[in-house]
């Protein structure tokens, strides 16, 4: 159950933090249709986050932060609003600051291609709840991936400026892609086993768009990972270990401010 909880937290935090970043786009998108689409995807991910955090809490109540005696805060909210940055298990791709529209397209593409591959396999998870979340999630994330893929192509083949911005965003976010497929042992599908599948999908998007896949450094040059990762275990590690970028703390400061001001509040 601790392993199940850890697994659900990881997937739940990914969804929660992505959702928070996506919802920052609300009332700021290039047009109404995309404003609605982005809010819709934020909602889908928020829904997934709620189910996964609740599942984590049910599987292992020990993961839920303690609150004042008699607090009416449900477990999903205790997890979302009363953990600190280093207790979050999301990938860093989800938390980095929003850039322009190309940035949200690239982030969603990288994120949803990997998540879709994972959820497809989790539909047959022995955990019934997780299997059900995955089954619903596959439909949602398929839409996200298609939206991102369509915009990736549009920006790649649109104007010189859109092409430039797309490439800039891809270059900025690509270093965070590997973390989505970092090995995870214990419960559930190991994301590392999805690399082949994910690469095929991404390569197809790159090929259709005529965008070069960003350079993975040659195998001998292992320092290419964002915080190294060679030789000695670095103190940092990845988002999965609770090692986050400087962007997560301000995100949480905003997200948690009202909930924390009223630890015994009802909402």
């Amino acid at each position: 159950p601790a392993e199940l909880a850890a697994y659900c937290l990881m997937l739940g935090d990914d969804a929660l933090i992505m959702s928070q970043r996506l919802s920052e786009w609300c009332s700021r998108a290039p047009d109404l249709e995309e404003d609605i689409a982005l809010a819709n995807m934020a909602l889908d991910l928020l829904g997934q986050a709620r189910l996964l955090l609740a599942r984590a809490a049910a599987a292992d109540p020990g993961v839920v932060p303690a609150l004042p005696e008699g607090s009416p805060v449900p477990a999903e909210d205790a997890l979302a609003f009363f953990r600190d940055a280093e207790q979050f298990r999301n990938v860093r791709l989800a938390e980095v600051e929003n850039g322009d529209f190309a940035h949200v397209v690239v982030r969603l593409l990288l994120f949803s291609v990997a998540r879709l591959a994972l959820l497809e396999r989790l539909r047959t998870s022995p955990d019934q709840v997780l299997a059900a979340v995955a089954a619903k999630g596959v439909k949602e994330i398929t839409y996200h991936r298609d939206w991102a893929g369509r915009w990736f192509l549009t920006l790649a083949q649109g104007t010189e400026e859109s092409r430039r911005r797309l490439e800039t965003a891809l270059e900025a976010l690509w270093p965070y892609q590997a973390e989505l497929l970092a090995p995870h042992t214990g419960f559930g599908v190991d994301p590392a086993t999805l690399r082949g599948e994910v690469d095929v999908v991404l390569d197809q998007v790159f090929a259709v768009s005529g965008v070069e896949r960003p350079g993975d450094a040659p195998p001998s040059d292992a320092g290419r990972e964002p915080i190294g990762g060679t030789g000695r275990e670095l103190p940092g590690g990845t988002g999965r270990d609770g090692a986050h970028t400087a962007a997560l703390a301000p995100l949480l400061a905003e997200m948690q401010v009202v909930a924390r001001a009223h630890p015994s509040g009802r909402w």
Partner: protein
Amino acid sequence: MTTTPVEPEALEAAFEATIARHDRIEPRDWMPDAYRRTLVRQMAQHAHSEIIGMQPEGAWIGRAPSLRRKAILLAKVQDEAGHGLYLYSACETLGVSRAELTELLLTGRQKYSSIFNYPTLSYADVGTIGWLVDGAAICNQVPLCRTSYGPYGRAMIRICKEESFHQRQGYELLMTMMRGTDAQREMVQESVNRFWWPSLMMFGPPDADSPNSARSMAWGVKRNSNDELRQKFVDMTVPQAEALGVTLPDPELRWNEERGHHDFGEPDWEELAAVIRGDGPCNAQRMAHRRAAHEDGAWVREAASAFAERAGAR
């Protein structure tokens, strides 16, 4: 196919007859220019209000204090974008494009509801906006479901259904908060204090000072006077406030047995005039936000057009 020339008088008579039967005018029907202009102005202002109205509530999505409330709020703000879409589409049936209307909004030549020029200062405001602001909007809008212009009426039916859902959600949030801590109850009361008068102003100036109303009512574009709707709103809201346990900040508010209505104080019409003139607390900010979003998105819209052209050329 031959077309028979029709006398202008005949067209006008047909139009008047449709209005008189309470039937709907449809896009292909002949209509007087002034009717068309009035409709475009009214629908555009409503559409703009939905779009600008995303901002005061949207500011709290990131800070929603529970995941359930975050989902509700995100969905609501998304619905507002959707309402904007329907209404811009309805305007397009009269031959005005969304791009033109956006331009009119961004250059200040068309207005949006003055209520959105007030700030949101606590999470209780999300509930209060649902309860009072959406409540007032519904009072204004339900009669418009029977408005004479078909596409507008049909858009309003859908919008009103969603608005009353939002209103219930807002009221429910306030109810829940009132069952919470003292600090939460104070937050609700403080929020109601700030939004009560601006909500009453949403019905517009008193009938005596509302020059366009008479013609709009004759055309069936508008179906009740400002003061009638305001009274209806007050009568509807007072018992809800009692159930909630909040005080409405008007010492003159009391039941008048004789009239069968509540008496209430006079809103500060100078304040309304100031906010409409652009001097409300958030006018500049709302417009700046909208303009920035529009300008930041220009390169994306250009890329999409360029892509579509190229795809079409293939």
